[in-house]
């Protein structure tokens, strides 16, 4: 509680400092430093060279020339060419819809798991985690086999007579296939945090609600759901952020018109070899995701 004074770090042993510093060092080394390099490249100009951009840092003697050669040209082209904005918006749209779908499917699953008899819960948990034991790529490729026009889904639907023998399922290489792939791949990331909060929920709260005249369906919205919000937010964040930058699934399952920023970035980087522009795309993507999260976290802390 608040009356117990928190142990102060001023008096803490050096060992304690070490424990704190190591993760921060890690972050500096593998997040901040690469980010700064990318940021620097985004301010450079494309060049047919190795590396494919200029200027290249050549020591502190020419620092003035080096700095003056940097500019925001690439960011300008991001704004000027509507392709990029469209790709960002499309990514956010796909991520948002996918996250909602994941919630709609994942919440009942997590709730059912949390309410299941405690003897079978580990089994259910195992079934959620099981797909991780196979490579992500293989699982996405498997969906190609299912969704392609002459694939398993077509065969199955024809066999039960829902589809005429000359018809085929037209899902592969559309946005639908992308949604199916994303929801399938990210479902465990939504279910696990939800399950963690729902499992901790005190069952007597629902009894109390019922005792006070609240039928179960109302009690869900007044008690269970509000108390599971931390899990909902955690699950939504864990899914929404990587889905926005997702590259593999839209590339393998999506059609030519499936526009996602991860794919655009890949094309700029490897297709056009325009590293500076690709870096600018990456920096904007990062800021677009980090800034709202930081604001949101701040709000959460104020509320709590």
């Amino acid at each position, binding site marked *: 509680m608040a009356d117990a004074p928190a142990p102060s770090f001023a008096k803490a042993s050096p060992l304690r400092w070490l424990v704190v510093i190591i993760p921060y060092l890690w972050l500096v080394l593998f997040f901040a430093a690469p980010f700064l390099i990318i940021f620097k490249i985004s301010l450079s100009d494309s060049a047919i060279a190795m590396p494919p951009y200029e200027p290249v840092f050549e020591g502190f003697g020419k620092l003035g020339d080096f700095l003056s050669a940097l500019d925001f040209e690439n960011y300008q082209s991001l704004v000027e060419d509507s392709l990029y904005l469209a790709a960002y918006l499309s990514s956010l749209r796909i991520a948002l819809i996918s996250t909602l779908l994941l919630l709609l499917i994942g919440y009942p699953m997590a709730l059912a798991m949390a309410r299941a008899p405690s003897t079978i819960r580990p089994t259910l948990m195992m079934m959620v985690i099981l797909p991780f034991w196979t490579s992500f790529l293989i699982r996405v490729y498997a969906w190609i086999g299912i969704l392609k026009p002459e694939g398993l889904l077509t065969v199955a639907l024809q066999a039960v007579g829902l589809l005429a023998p000359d018809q085929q399922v037209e899902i592969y290489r559309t946005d639908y296939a992308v949604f199916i792939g994303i929801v399938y791949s990210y479902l465990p990331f939504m279910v696990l945090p939800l399950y963690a909060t729902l499992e901790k929920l005190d069952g007597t709260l629902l*009894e*109390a609600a019922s*005792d006070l005249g609240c039928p179960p369906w109302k009690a869900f919205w007044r008690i269970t759901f509000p108390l599971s919000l931390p899990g909902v937010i955690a699950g939504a964040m864990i899914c929404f952020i990587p889905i926005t930058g997702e590259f593999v699934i839209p590339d393998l399952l999506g059609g030519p018109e499936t526009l996602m920023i991860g794919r655009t970035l890949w094309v700029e980087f490897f297709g056009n070899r325009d590293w500076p522009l690709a870096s600018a795309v990456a920096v904007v993507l990062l800021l677009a995701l980090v800034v709202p999260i930081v604001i949101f976290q701040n709000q959460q802390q104020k509320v709590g």
Partner: protein
Amino acid sequence: MAKSLGPVKRKFSPWTDPSATPFIRFENITKRYGDFTAVDNLTLDIYEREFFSLLGPSGCGKTTLMRMLAGFEEPTSGRILLQGKDLSGVPPYRRPTNMMFQSYALFPHMTVEKNIAFGLEQDGLAKPEIKARVEEMLKLVKLEPFAKRKPAQLSGGQRQRVALARSLAKRPKVLLLDEPLGALDRKLREETQFELMDIQHTLGLTFLIVTHDQEEAMTVSDRIAVMDKGVVVQVAAPAEIYEGPNCRYVAEFIGDINILDCAVTENAGVCVHPGHPPLVRLESDGMKIAVEQECPASNGAKVAFAIRPEKVRISLDPPVETDVNTAHGEVWDIGYLGDFSVFLVRLDDGRILRAAQANVSRLVDRPITFGDMVWLTWPLDGGLVLTR
């Protein structure tokens, strides 16, 4: 009940009135979980405005019984009637009972105010009405300054009051209290017990409380049902339970008691003192005991003699001209409780009897101490013959 207790004066005793209709009736209730029988063919009547306790050790079925009344469990067989209406199949949210949970079960994401208003909102009451009722409840439990706090920001005692206010807000016909004061410290618990009685009296509600704490049950209740292994062993007012337990189990469960195995030597129904119950003579390993009590046991029957420590007198001097209801032994241990001292006396035959003495004067060194040879005596109406 045994007449030896004398006429019991009580203002409120509907259970003695054969024409009174019970408010709640548990009728041949059995509850099984697999092979385990939690409640076994139990029948019990509770009257309106009664403060009724279910008392027993954990696992005796008292909580199960209460949960069946609240509707969280359905009896395996038998039925529960409330004001004559069968409650079978009625879900908890349609029952006119409210429960105060042992864990309080306050909604952590709602303020104190919202917690109390929750049940009223379910009834679809108008906003101003809810507001007025919440304020009334806050006042009743003296929590007005804390209306906007969340449960996590309250102390244990305050949370307990919120739970009470929330369960009282709907004016339930029956308030169920599941070990309501278990988490409170002793002082606060005693205070709250009296407050509970006050509230029950003011609002005129029927309270059913589940507890394993016999002191609590004695303090608050009009009647206590002592339970063991799914059955009710005795139902009576606190004083009757304490002074006239109907079996060894109740005698030992409630308070401290000495129990001696005896044989009946004379039970002729002869009254020695006019107006008193007849005299029963017993013998316990050479010790002669006489009790004034109506007792069905015939000569030679194996019975138990039970006597509370505070009814045994302890003295350094031998009793005058009698060998009945006396024992001689050595002070083996002393338990100093502040208000009382309990002397464990090892009798000459090796058995141990306990005698309690009120510490009426402020002495650190008491006249009777370890190793003293003492005489124990008790009156004819001090003890009790238990036939089972």
